[in-house]
């Protein structure tokens, strides 16, 4: 016997799901631009296929990043994903063994215990073929069932899973999750009931069958067994039908996304076809919610998981798009590694692209200043922190650097704030002017005091022949080259990683190395990749002053916990934000360096050496 009518709900559901997935994915991939499609074509036959497959295994089945987040959370996700995968894999092998290696219909391994019953085996009889399979299949089923118990438990005690807040479900999600949670208990019930009167089954289903047989009449067992197979098939079918519109769409999408990323397909500054894939790869696990500082300003509605939900609806909601500091903490923890910042900015592009900007007023002439090695750019914000500006000039003079202060008389914005608003064309027109000024200067090194400008010059400007450095990097270089003689002040200091310099540009090492030369660096609870945003970020376009202060105060609470002599940062915006919120003195790293500097004998700096 290889067919019964009860398999139809499952079978129809599966066919429906496969058709929908095929249509959706082919459409998205077809809409990827030409260079992207070429990358996919090339990638499919490249060595990239192996690391990509490894990542699919590690992330989609083992959930390595979830484990890093929280062990219980990791185990819960792994038991579902890996367990179900093994159940399918093992079930297929088992069914082939039973059917003698024939190709079976897809429902056959799923409902194998309905079609095949044979003699009883001992619960832990591992040395015979049927004993081995029954034990393994029951073991895997138990593994999945623990995941379900944990998932239920997470509903009441999410904090045990490292989560203060969990994601609110949409209605499709509720249907899907109910079916998903029923699938495995239904399988257990169906297999146990079958085992109760036909025998068979492993340590779990067999024992449960025996218990049921001892308390229920025989004819009742036979009829409920058949009904429960129907139930099992139905919940599978409904789950498959709801899947493409529920959070579980992330399962197939994440796999596709991982391969595409390995082939070099990237998200961009506008919403494209790859963004469509990325936004659906979100499992709504909610790990991003707790780390998001928008919670501190009572703006949970705009945390990444809800932002993506709004994005998938295709109706721009500026208030959701704009309420984000672009600090990057979410991207740091996202188990699926979705490019959340790119998506946020791309979504703002939809909101703002109709806004025209005019910059024709920018001066046509470009100052010419040959004979310098270093161009110093304080940045717009740098002009509001004159102590930083003054310290930098003092240091460069002391180190005998041939420099020019590019924006001594006021800056032209680097363009990053416009890019953060998704206004890429506007950004490019202000960038062009700065690019001309930089190239005309003849400088080999561009030093900036503002991490926002640094990230922009470094990543977007493509300044060939000009090395872009943040002042933390440049000052360390000067110190290491012996051009600065620094004293150890002995002061205890904490260091605040500015978002754009830390997570944004991965500059963690240089400021710390430099600081250790002049002070005693004390670690803080959240630092480097986990550093908190000061709240002043230009990334947000919506928060008011009070909400920013709430975020600032929460960050200050963490930073000032070790009660340091000084709070050091390396961003004018962070400095200004923190300055009014604490009694602890807030300084830029450059100020401390300038204070602890002995004036050395004038030495001519070798530009060649510095500009390597």
């Amino acid at each position, binding site marked *: 016997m290889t067919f019964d009518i009860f398999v139809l709900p499952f079978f129809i559901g599966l066919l429906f799901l496969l058709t929908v997935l095929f249509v959706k994915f082919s459409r998205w991939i077809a809409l990827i631009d030409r260079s992207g499609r070429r990358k996919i074509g090339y990638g499919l036959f490249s060595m990239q296929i192996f690391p990509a497959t490894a990542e699919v295994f590690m992330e989609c089945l083992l959930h390595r990043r979830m484990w890093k987040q929280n062990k219980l959370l990791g185990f819960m996700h792994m038991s579902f994903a890996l367990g179900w995968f093994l159940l399918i894999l093992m079930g297929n092998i088992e069914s082939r063994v039973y059917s003698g290696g024939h190709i079976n219909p897809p429902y056959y391994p799923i409902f194998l215990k309905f079609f095949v019953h044979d003699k009883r085996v001992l619960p832990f009889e591992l040395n015979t073929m049927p004993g081995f399979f029954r034990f393994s299949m029951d073991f895997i089923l138990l593994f999945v069932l623990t995941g379900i118990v944990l998932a239920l438990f997470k509903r009441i005690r999410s904090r045990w899973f490292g989560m203060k807040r969990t994601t609110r479900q949409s209605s499709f999600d509720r249907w899907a999750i109910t079916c998903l949670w029923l699938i495995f208990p239904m399988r257990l019930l169906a297999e146990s009931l079958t085992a109760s009167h036909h025998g068979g089954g492993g340590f779990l289903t067999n024992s449960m069958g025996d218990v049921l047989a001892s308390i229920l009449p025989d004819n009742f067992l036979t009829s409920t067994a058949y009904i429960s197979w129907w139930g099992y098939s139905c919940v599978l079918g409904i789950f498959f039908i709801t899947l493409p519109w529920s959070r579980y769409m992330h399962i197939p999408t994440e796999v596709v996304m991982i391969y595409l990323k390995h082939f070099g397909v990237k998200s961009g500054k506008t919403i494209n076809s790859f963004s469509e894939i990325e936004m659906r790869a979100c499992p709504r696990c909610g790990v991003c919610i707790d780390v998001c500082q928008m919670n501190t300003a009572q703006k949970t509605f705009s945390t990444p998981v809800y932002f993506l939900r709004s994005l998938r609806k295709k109706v721009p909601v500026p208030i959701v798009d704009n309420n984000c500091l672009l600090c990057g903490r979410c991207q740091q923890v996202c188990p699926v590694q979705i490019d959340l910042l790119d998506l946020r900015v791309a979504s703002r592009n939809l909101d703002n692209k109709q806004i025209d900007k005019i910059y024709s007023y920018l001066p046509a002439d470009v100052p010419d200043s040959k004979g310098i090695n270093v161009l110093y750019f304080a940045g717009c914000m740098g*002009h*509001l*922190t*004159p102590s930083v500006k*003054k310290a930098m000039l003092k240091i460069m003079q002391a180190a005998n650097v041939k420099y020019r202060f590019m924006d001594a008389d006021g800056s032209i914005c680097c363009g990053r704030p416009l890019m953060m608003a998704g206004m890429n064309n506007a950004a490019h027109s202000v960038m062009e002017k700065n690019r001309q000024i930089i190239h005309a200067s003849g400088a080999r090194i561009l030093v900036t005091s503002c991490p926002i400008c640094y990230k922009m010059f470094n990543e977007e400007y493509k300044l060939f022949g000009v090395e872009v450095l943040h002042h933390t990097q440049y000052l360390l270089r000067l110190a290491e080259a012996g051009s600065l003689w620094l004293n150890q002040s002995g002061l205890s200091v904490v260091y605040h990683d500015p978002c754009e310099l830390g997570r944004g540009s991965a500059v963690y090492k240089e400021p710390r190395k430099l600081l250790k030369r002049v002070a005693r660096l004390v670690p803080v609870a959240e630092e480097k990749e986990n550093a908190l945003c000061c709240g002043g970020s230009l990334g947000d376009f919506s928060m008011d*002053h009070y909400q920013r202060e709430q975020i600032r105060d929460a960050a200050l609470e963490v930073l000032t916990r070790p009660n340091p002599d000084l709070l050091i940062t390396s961003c004018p915006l962070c400095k*200004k934000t923190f300055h*009014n919120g604490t009694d602890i003195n807030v300084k830029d790293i450059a100020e401390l360096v300038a204070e602890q500097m002995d004036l050395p004998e004038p030495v001519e700096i070798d530009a060649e050496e510095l500009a390597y």
Partner: protein
Amino acid sequence: MSKHVAVVGAGIAGIEAASILNAMGHSITLIEKNEILGGHINHWHQLFPNRRQGRDLLEKLYEKMDDSIQVQYGKEITSIKPFSGKFIVTAADGWVTNADAVLMATGFDLFDAHKKEEYGYGIYDHVITSADLEEIFIQGEGLNPRLGKDPQRIGFIHCVGSRDEKAGNIYCSKVCCITAVKQAIEIKELYPSVEVYCFYMDLRMFGRHYEELYQEAQEKHNIQFIRGRLSEASENKQGGVVVKVEDTLLGKPLKLTLDLLVLMSGMVAPVAVTNMRDKLGLAKVDDGFLKPVDPHTQANLSELPGFFMAGTATGPKTITDTLTDARSAALEIDRFLKEII
């Protein structure tokens, strides 16, 4: 038996209230954290609107002070606790007293101009505060020791740390506009050829003879008033301070180089007093000052019977208002002490 009142703070409000209460027959302890009486006025050269010496006002107040007032110097009060109808007042050095009533005449702190980094105080040599300028007037050596020359252009920035959300103070400090006018005139008298500019958001000349002083500044001294708030100051190679404002009445950005920039620091609530207020469970106001039960009819009373306040402890005030307020507090305390017999 006479009742005992602890007056915290021996600035002008504390002295005035102590004198009156003492004359009414109460026993008074006047507690001062510094080693001298008089508070901020000690550092103020001349007072608006009549330009009398700060010293002169203090002497007038000291004359009324009877020797029977017990004065405690160098006592920084750290806690005030109500205890069975009395108050236990404790200082940082362990000194303790019991009082039937407490008068908070704790005054104000000057806003720390370092907090407005973009104005360059503590960064540029030629940026000072209004309090620094008074000190210079008191020293009597003029501006030359600091500037190395006779000044040619001086600017006054109103509202530094006042009417400023970013500084955490939304309120107006009341006295800065008129003080700037007074200081501008003093400068002008010292250096008749100097050009003086006052940068303001709104000129609040609300008191008797304030407008006249403003008029005098314009008519007699040619002091210029520019309606625009300073965004940032920078330093040029000669050590001059370059200020940027918008001349809002002309609608154009304006850049001006000054030899000296004077920041009119506003009044802020002393942190220690705000903390004490919160510890006692008294009404909180965002600005940190003490809050009277009723701003019109019970301006010296708190929710705690026997706990009174006077002067700038309840927010920025002029000298005239502070003294009036201190006298009204003395009356309220007298009434309270008579009721509790």
